[in-house]
């Protein structure tokens, strides 16, 4: 069973730093212990479209409520069952990942994900979703949220 990240909307300030760290953590510039100021220096615009964070801060004008949502790594993940290429799959440790090389951008996973947690990635070529920072060992959003509004738990 995979670990899951839980957002705490009562303390989320809507700063979007999780999105910034997420983009950074999934870029080729990633460094495990980067701080915000380094990140600004390191990130070079390298593609013709804006990088997509794998986390989504929900906020609406006129409300104070904000929170950051990402893939729930569902036990019975509908995205994997709808995927026509096998790109969206469960790893042995339980996490759900998208093999972006294999993905053809058919968006069947968007059709199936009950949380709206899959986004269309850069240049709308492949699905972009939270992989719990596979390469870093620990999710960058959780680690860097200034108000500890994200928590990772095994459930």
């Amino acid at each position: 069973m995979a670990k899951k990240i839980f957002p705490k909307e009562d303390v989320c300030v809507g700063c979007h730093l999780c999105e910034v760290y997420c983009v950074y953590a999934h870029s080729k510039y990633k460094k495990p212990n980067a701080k915000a100021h380094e990140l600004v220096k390191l990130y070079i615009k390298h593609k013709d479209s804006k990088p997509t964070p794998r986390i989504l801060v929900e906020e609406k004008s006129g409300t104070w409520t904000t929170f950051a949502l990402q893939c729930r790594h569902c036990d019975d993940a509908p995205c994997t069952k709808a995927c026509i290429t096998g790109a969206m799959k469960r790893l042995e440790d339980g996490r759900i990942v998208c093999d972006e090389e294999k993905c053809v951008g058919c968006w069947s996973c968007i059709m199936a994900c009950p949380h709206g947690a899959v986004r269309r990635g850069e240049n709308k070529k492949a699905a972009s979703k939270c992989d719990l920072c596979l390469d870093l060992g620990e999710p960058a959003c959780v680690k860097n949220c200034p108000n500890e509004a994200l928590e990772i738990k095994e459930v």
Partner: protein
Amino acid sequence: MKYVIIGNSVAACGCIEAIRKVDTQNPIVVISDEKYRVYSRPLISYYLGGKVDESKMYIRDEDYYEKNMVETKLGKKAVAVDFKNKEVILDDGEKVKYDKLLIATGGKPFIPPTKGSESKNVFTFIKFDDVKAIDEAIKNGAKKAVVIGAGLSGLKAAEALIKRGLDVTVVELANRILGSILDLEASRIVQDELEKHGIVFKLETSVDEIIGDGKVERVKLKNGEVLDADIVVFAIGVVPNIDFLKGTELKINRGIVVDNRMQTNIEDVYAAGDCAEGYDFVFEQQRVIPIWPNAYNQGETAGYNMAGVQKTFDRGFPMNSIGFFDVHMITAGIVVPNSDDIEVLVKHDKEKNTYRKIYLKNGRVVGFMFINSIDRAGMITNMIKEGFNVESIKHRLLDEDFGYLDLPKEIRQEKILGGAKA
């Protein structure tokens, strides 16, 4: 105990994966008349269009069968099932005994009786071998294509063929393209996009005769028009691939009739996917729902039950996610209202070229059609599945940024925090 599966596509995968979650011991045998390991049918148009190569056609890793302890009999066709003696008879005479059988033979192309349809360079568009043959014809110089049928697979074929540089004409009997998933307004948006890329449409007519000296040269339409053609692709639809089971005690209506455990009327015999007729939760009737996620879910349910774990699947309904060039659409459930008590919400933003239409019944979503505005559509699909009452938030559903913030806090938290199950 021995599990046998006829068919080697996504329903079979669902079945194998469910069985192996609960039974890591007993043998599974998979029989398929195709020689390939499990590949994606929807990807054949991507292959033909040059977007994926052969290595990416396969939906599971190379060691899939080995890892799951599956014995495969590929390139062998099941020609009969002896339900009394519990054995499947193959075209080479081999008999395969089973204790639990899954029939997952999918669909086969429907070709209306047409003069000349036996000619060379007349193709269907279902299997890997179909597109390999079309590819061959293109390499041999085919320049003009006529596609019969403007449904999902016909248009995917047309898109791939135009990408390959052919002249493409699509012939469709109905007054609009994608009639099974789009209304007139929405289909116009998609047709405009396809026409922009050079595809020519002949609507409200169909093929009368294929003309040529053993090989396609022209296609005569019912409206009298004659089109030059080097290849013809029939993509009118699929019908359950169950001819070899007709006349047996197996209960067949349009497809093999199954209950919500995917059990047929014969003990220990299950069916799933495009060959099966299960319950459509939105239409509230038994139907064949020939789509990928449904095939997986049905196969998975069958697998659990075959392995002795009681699970039901009673939330099947049609849903589609498809794109042509830069137009993407997601549709689900009812897309053409079928009764008076259906409320319609619609928003067509001509500037952005987006279209959102939602059907409600008793305050619940029963269908939707989103074009070029598809982010988070799964939340709506899930609302159909859950029968979620949207009365208080219904106009927000048309907005592109609809999200969890539109739900009351308790419900939102329940879905996010507890909802990791989905």
